[in-house]
């Protein structure tokens, strides 16, 4: 096994999540795919340099992912309550 194989695994995960992000029709599902993309980036980070420094960065990325999920879902729930839909195609105005 080479580092290329480990990177290919992470990149496949990232590309599958990106495909889902680009094709799905729901804001909640888009955020789910976004989390999976961040997860794939974490996998590549740890797989390509398996030492304590990269794992420390991965721990920080976990915290960022948690913060992102919290704010993202709060935003989505606010948008959904205002527009009565979770379909991004139906949300065209972002006037506060």
């Amino acid at each position, binding site marked *: 096994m080479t580092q290329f194989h480990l990177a290919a695994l992470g990149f496949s995960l990232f590309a599958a999540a990106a495909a889902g992000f680009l094709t799905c029709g729901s804001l*909640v599902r888009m955020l789910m795919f976004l989390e999976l993309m961040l997860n794939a980036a974490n996998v590549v980070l740890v797989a390509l340099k398996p030492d304590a420094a990269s794992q420390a960065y991965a721990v920080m990325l976990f915290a960022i992912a948690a913060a992102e999920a919290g704010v993202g879902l709060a935003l989505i729930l606010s948008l959904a309550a205002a527009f009565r839909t979770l379909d991004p195609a139906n949300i065209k105005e972002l006037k506060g």
Partner: protein
Amino acid sequence: MILNAAVWGFGGLAVLATVLMIFQRDSVKAALLMLAALLCTACVYLALSAQLLAVLQVILYAGAIMTLFVVALTVTPAAWRDRPLPASLKGVLGLAAAFVLLAELLKLAAPLRSAAVTLGFSETGTLELARRLFGPFVFQFELLSLVILASIVAAVSLTARRRA
């Protein structure tokens, strides 16, 4: 040998669960597939000798973040949830874009073909990780607490405005 098989097996399962998520129409089943992908990733971390990350992956991603998604799916009325995936031009273009992205990333990673990796079980202790986090990375780590505080305030203010 067994660690190689574990990385390939669980990594492949994670990719498979993510691909199945795209074609799953039921949102709750999609959330369960995401949970499967996250747990498989935790197993990949374990095979890469990142034991603490595997535990954090289960607690944070598969626990806390998945709970948030399930709550979000529960509180939104079923009528607002996603419609069946239309086989539109947008979908085809999205998949094509993802394939192009994958091809470019693999092309960029081509120099790594010569870097051999031998996976062996080792222990990355929490003490070593803590030394890094509170040593050279202390500024970034403390900055993260501000990010999390800001996200808590933002989430509370957004939902409070909605309730009012």
